[in-house]
C-alpha cells in the first residue's frame, strides 16, 4: 500500500484492495517515511507532544476507546461527538486507541495537525472552522433551555449512571458491556476502574449520598428529560439541533449499555418516548449501527476507516 494523495505529497496512508483509504502497517509506514512516527499505534504511553497522525487536510481524526457491544460506544461522549460528525457529514476517520488527550481524557480529535480535547470543545471548534450552526433555527430562550438540559445530563445524570454501573456491588454489569475483557483482565479493569469512579464521585459530591439518594437524583433527571421531550420528534422540536447529539449519546447508554439497572428499567417502563426518540436518531445518523456493535453478527472493525470522504 503506497502513499497516495492527489498532489503526490506523502500523507501516511494508502488505498486498500477495496479502494478504501487504509492506514499502512507500522513497518510499511516506517520504511516509506523514515523519521516520522506513527502516532496512533503508540498507545497510552505516547507523550501528548508526539506528532499528530498524518491525516490529509480537512479530515478529522477521532480518537475514541473502541466500539461497544450493543451500541457504537460504551461512553456517551464519543457517541455524542461521532453523531455530530455524522449528522453534519464531516469527513472523519476513527482511531480506536487508549491514547488520551492532553487533558487526560477521551474522546478527542486532531484536525489539520491540531489536537482538540473535550467533546464539547471539539464540537464548538469544528462548528467555527466549518461554518456549522446546528442551533441556527433556535431562539435565544430555546438555546438556553437546550444548554441547561445538556449540562444537566452531562454533569449530573452522567454521574448517577456511572455510580449505577461502576460503584454498586453488582459488578456483572461491567462484564456485559466489556465483552473483550475476560478473566484476570476483566477483574483488573473492574477493580481499578471502580476505584477511580468512586473517587471521582466522592470529589464531585454525588458520591457522598446514599444509594437511594443517588438513584432519586438520576430518576428526577430522566423524568425531566422525558417530560420536556414529550411527543416532539427531536429534543427542541421538529428539527434536530446540537443537543440531540448529546442527549442521544447519553440516553443510548441508558437503553443499551446499562443492563438490569434502575435507569434502564425506569426508562423502558415509564418513559416510552425516549425509546422512540433514540430509534429516530439511530435511523438518522447511524444506518450502519449493526456493523459497529461488537456483539452483532455483522460487526466490522472500522479502525482507520474514513467516512464522508467521497
Amino acid at each position: 500500500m503506497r502513499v497516495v494523495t492527489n498532489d503526490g505529497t506523502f500523507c501516511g496512508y494508502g488505498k486498500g484492495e477495496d479502494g478504501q483509504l487504509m492506514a499502512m502497517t507500522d513497518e510499511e509506514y516506517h520504511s516509506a517515511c523514515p523519521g516520522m512516527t506513527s502516532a496512533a499505534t503508540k498507545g497510552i504511553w505516547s507523550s501528548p507532544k508526539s506528532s499528530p497522525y498524518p491525516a490529509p487536510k480537512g479530515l478529522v481524526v477521532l480518537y475514541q476507546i473502541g466500539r461497544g457491544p450493543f451500541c457504537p460506544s460504551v461512553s456517551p461522549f464519543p457517541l455524542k461527538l461521532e453523531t455530530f460528525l455524522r449528522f453534519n457529514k464531516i469527513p472523519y476517520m476513527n482511531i480506536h486507541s487508549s491514547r488520551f488527550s492532553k487533558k487526560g481524557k477521551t474522546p478527542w480529535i486532531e484536525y489539520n495537525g491540531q489536537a482538540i480535547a473535550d467533546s464539547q470543545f471539539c464540537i464548538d471548534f469544528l462548528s467555527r472552522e466549518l461554518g456549522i450552526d446546528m442551533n441556527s433555527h433556535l431562539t435565544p430562550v430555546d438555546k438556553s433551555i437546550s444548554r441547561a438540559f445538556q449540562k444537566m445530563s452531562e454533569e449530573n445524570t452522567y454521574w448517577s449512571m456511572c455510580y449505577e454501573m461502576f460503584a454498586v456491588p453488582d459488578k456483572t454489569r461491567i462484564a456485559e458491556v466489556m465483552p473483550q475483557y475476560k478473566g484476570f483482565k476483566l477483574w483488573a479493569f473492574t477493580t481499578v476502574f471502580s476505584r477511580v469512579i468512586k473517587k471521582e464521585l466522592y470529589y464531585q459530591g454525588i458520591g457522598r449520598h446514599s444509594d437511594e439518594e443517588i438513584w432519586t437524583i438520576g430518576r428526577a433527571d430522566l423524568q425531566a428529560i422525558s417530560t420536556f421531550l414529550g411527543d416532539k420528534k427531536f429534543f427542541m422540536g421538529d428539527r434536530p439541533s446540537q443537543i440531540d447529539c448529546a442527549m442521544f449519546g447519553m440516553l443510548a447508554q441508558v437503553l443499551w449499555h446499562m443492563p438490569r439497572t434502575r435507569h434502564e428499567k425506569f426508562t423502558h417502563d415509564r418513559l416510552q418516548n425516549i425509546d422512540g426518540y433514540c430509534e429516530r436518531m439511530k435511523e438518522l445518523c447511524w444506518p450502519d449501527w449493526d456493523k459497529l456493535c461488537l456483539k452483532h453478527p455483522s460487526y466490522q472493525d472500522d479502525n482507520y476507516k474514513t467516512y464522508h470522504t467521497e
Partner: protein
Amino acid sequence: MGSFLETFRNLETSQTILYVFGGAAVTAVSLVAIRKLTLKEEKRKDYPRDTVILHQIGRGPYAPSMTPFAVKLETYLRMARIPYQNVHGMRPSPKGKVPWIEYNGQPIGDSTLCIQFLNQKLEVDLNKHLSPADKGVAQAMQVMTEEHLYWFLALIRWIYSRDASFILETFKFTKFFVWMIRRHIKKRTWLQGLGRHTEEEIVEMMNKDIQSLSDFIGRKRFLMGDEPSEADCSVFGMLSQTYWQFNGSGYENLIKDKYPNLASYCERMKDAFWPDWDQCITHGGTREATK
C-alpha cells in the same frame, strides 16, 4: 529540659519503651476524651421542636453567606415561610459538607435533599403553578447552575483570583490554609473534569452559562415567570456570589455591566425574600451581622 533528657538517657531500654508507649496512650485517651466532651457539649443544646436548625458557616461580607448553597437553602426557607433558626459554625453534616439542617433531632445533609425532605414533611410545593414541562426546564436550569456554573465560580474564586486578600480577610484563614483549600479544590475539579481546562476555557464556559440564564430569564420577574419557584433559590444563591461577592476575581462587575437583567433579578429576589439583608451581612467585615 537538659536534666530531663539526662534522666531519659539513663533509663534502661524496657523502661524507655514503657514511658514511650505510656505517653502515647495518655495522649490518645486525652484527645478522645476532649473530642467526646466537645461533641457532647454541642449535643446538649436543646433546639426547639418543629423548627429547622440551619447549620451554616457564618454571614458573608456582602451577601448572607460565602457559599451559594447556604443562600439557596435559607432563601427557600424564607420563600416557603418555614420557621428556622441559624447555627453558625464549622461543623459539617454527616456527609462532610455545609450547609445542612436538623429537624426534630434528625440531621439531613445536602441543600437539595434538605429541600426535598422539608417539601415532603411540611407539604410544601413551590412549583405547583408550573406545568410538567416547565418543571423539567426548571430542574435543568437548577442543575446547570449547581453542577456546572458552580465549579467555574469555585475555580475563579479560589484558583484564578488575581487578589486573594478578599478570601483571606473574609475567612480569616492563614495563607497556608488557603493553599490547602486551593489544593483540595484543584483535586476535586480535576477529578470532576472541569478543572482540566485552561482559565480562558473556564471563563468562556462561565460566560455561556450566565448568558443562558440571562437569555432565559429575559424580562421575566423570576426564573419561570411572574411567580418565584424552587429553582429561583438555587439560581439566586449562585448569582449572589457573582454579583455581590466576586471581589478580587477580576469579574466583580461582570453581572452589573454585561447582564443587567440578572442584576435586576438579584435585586428583586433580595427585596422579596431578604428585606433584612443589611442585618444579615457583615458589610465587608466592619460589623457583626445581627441576624
